């Protein structure tokens, strides 16, 4: 049962919405529309010769097996980033929730990484994991791991996933902690009285009640993995070695700025936009139903 509120005015609501709508129009619809238009053009790097080619750019991009690999890689990368960013964050939040003394100090320390720009996070991890001089790669060599992200695609992938997720852990931690604190203590106490152990309390009470938070964080983290990880990849691996860390957003930038092929780059950004919009719709339509608020 929903109650509908009906406003007597027709103009006022739109007037109140206007500032937000104008901002969205200028900063989202206009550039997005331009990208769609440019994706149908073939032009030289300086825009001296511009021709309408219809869907040719999409054909070229989608028929390229390397690009299809990039799409698959982007999904793998995003799933890994989301998992690596959510699981430790939940663990840390549960731990922090139990701390009584000096809780705010721990919380502050755990939140700090969120204030760091992705590119800076990339640079930090690059130093930590640099072959032969890195603080982490040095001991790795002693235990017999031949760590070299410059030439080993798997090492490079691990590196960009870790550094992309690391920054996001702080953000997720914050939301999980808030979610945990809003779980009524009486429920936990009731479970304890019924003799449920910690594991059972977590799976049957805490996790279901955290579902709305988790769902929200999945949406936010997927978007982060698709778009904002550009800085990490640009500063660490430039998509290499080979193409092993090239994700869609990086290739959009590369084809537009380095290769100076505006049409192909625009076509890719349209494809990227469609994928992310579709993902978000799917998440809201199907996962949302399973979440109890």
């Amino acid at each position: 049962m929903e109650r509908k509120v009906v406003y007597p005015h027709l103009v006022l609501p739109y007037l109140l919405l206007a500032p937000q709508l104008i901002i969205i129009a200028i900063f989202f619809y206009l550039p997005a529309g331009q990208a769609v238009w440019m994706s149908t053009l073939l032009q030289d790097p300086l825009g001296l010769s511009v021709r309408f080619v219809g869907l040719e750019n999409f054909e070229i991009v989608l028929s390229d097996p390397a690009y299809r690999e990039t799409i698959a890689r982007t999904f793998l990368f995003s799933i890994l980033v989301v998992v690596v960013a959510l699981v430790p964050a939940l663990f840390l939040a549960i731990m922090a929730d139990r701390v009584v003394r000096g809780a705010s100090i721990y919380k502050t320390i755990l939140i700090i990484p969120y204030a760091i720009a992705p590119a800076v996070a990339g640079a930090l991890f690059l130093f930590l994991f640099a072959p032969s001089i890195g603080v982490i790669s040095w001991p790795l060599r002693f235990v017999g791991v031949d760590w070299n992200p410059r030439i080993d695609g798997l090492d490079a992938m691990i590196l960009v996933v870790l550094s992309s997720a690391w920054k996001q852990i702080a953000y997720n931690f914050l939301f999980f902690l808030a979610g945990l604190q809003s779980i009524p203590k009486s429920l936990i106490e009731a479970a304890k009285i019924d003799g449920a152990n910690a594991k059972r309390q977590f799976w049957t009470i805490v996790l279901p009640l955290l579902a709305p938070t988790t769902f929200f964080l999945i949406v936010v983290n997927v978007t982060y993995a698709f778009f904002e990880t550009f800085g990490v990849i640009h500063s660490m691996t430039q998509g290499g070695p080979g193409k092993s860390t090239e994700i869609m957003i990086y290739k959009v930038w590369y084809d537009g700025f380095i290769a100076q092929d505006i049409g192909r780059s625009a076509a890719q950004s349209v494809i990227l936009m469609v994928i992310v919009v579709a993902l978000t719709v799917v998440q809201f339509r199907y996962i949302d139903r399973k979440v109890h608020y």
Partner: protein
Amino acid sequence: MSKDSRRLRPLRAEGTPQTGEDTMIRRTLLKGVATAATLAALTFTASAQTRTTIDMWIGVTGPAQEQILGLAREFNESQQTVTANVSFRGQYPEQRAAAFAAFRAGNPPHIMQMFDAGTGDMFGLPRATIPVSEVFRRAGMAFDPAQFIGPARSYYSAADGTLNSMPFNVSTAVMFYNKNIFRAAGLNPEQPPRTWPELIAAATQIRERNAAECGFTTTWLAWIMLEQFSALHDLPLATEANGRGGLSTELTFADAQRAQMVQTLIDASRNNVFRYGGRSNDAAALFEAGTCGILLQSSGGHASIANAMRTRNNEFGVAALPHFPSIIAEPKNGIVGGASLWVFNRANMSEAEIRGVAQFLAHLARPESLVRFATATGFLPATQAAFQQMQASGFFAQNAGRDVPILQLTRGTPTSNSGGYRFGRWTEIRDMYHEEVERALQGQQTAIVALQNAQRRGNEALRQFQRSVGN
């Protein structure tokens, strides 16, 4: 606090409706400020009334940037008519993206510094620029392209001898080696390897005697292992005289010789005889830190290496790039790298602007400018006159190894394979080579397959470029 911020706000947000009293005060204040500003501006422009401003965008940092800014300052003080306004707009690729965007918006800089690999793009877009030779002709100033050293001139000239862009920071790739590591490995530090078999033997010995963590490494993989390698061994990169004959050029570098080079790197990767240090400049750090005994790198990196070696108390030597005697007995000249200066064809450029551009370019090409630039950076003197001046002053005698790159560039008679190349989208094609060779170094494909893939993808890019410029 809130009172203060209200007082301050009107100055920033001009035109926002205010209460009557506030507005009055604001207007009077603004008027006063405006009058003072106009007066100051008037007195200032009175002395500089006739000055034409010339914008130049550059993409270099460190000593090279300081030198160019210094030359511009000196130029501005030396005369009354032109002000050269040099600004750094990010590293080469970012600066190029910025300049191209400015061109699309109808307001490009007068001059831009374009790196070697972008040369083919500019040649493919003749309407966008004015050849340097023509700039001087229109300015009524004498200009002889022959003043520039041969390999640089041929790299930036059209078939009819017109110099399209002015060579400025010229470099080539050479071999640096650490003499201390050579001694520790029982190698003769005064006898650097001249050929690839010798280099591999030396690097292997460095590893066997554990004199360093790795034998050799290289920067700029495609530039050194494909472009310089092909010029040295007199092998064509593509049809149509390496692309200088026209946009229909097709890459032909996937052959046994180029594969032998890649295979040599793959084989040497075992036991760290060779260590891959990334696509661009990063491998230089491996040499500077004493991790690798030998480095193949741009001569432009000389100053930085010399600094690092001094701090480490190590001696280093410079030698020509190695070659395969099985492919060529006497290696040809190397090709130039670095960047050149292009003049954008701005809409409605006045005669004064053309003259200003020509005067500033002439100032940069003076022997004394180039000598100072080359001395401070490790780049090569771009003109014969500057080279001779450095020779006469005894610079090369005092600075061992600094003449190696210029001798390597100018040795022998250049062939159509060693006189440079010209391809659209070469920046991207270089990365295709990087990607494919990296996959070969990971053991995912053989050397020849890597080259075939790079060649096929490169040719697709060339065709796409040809179509995009409307040919």
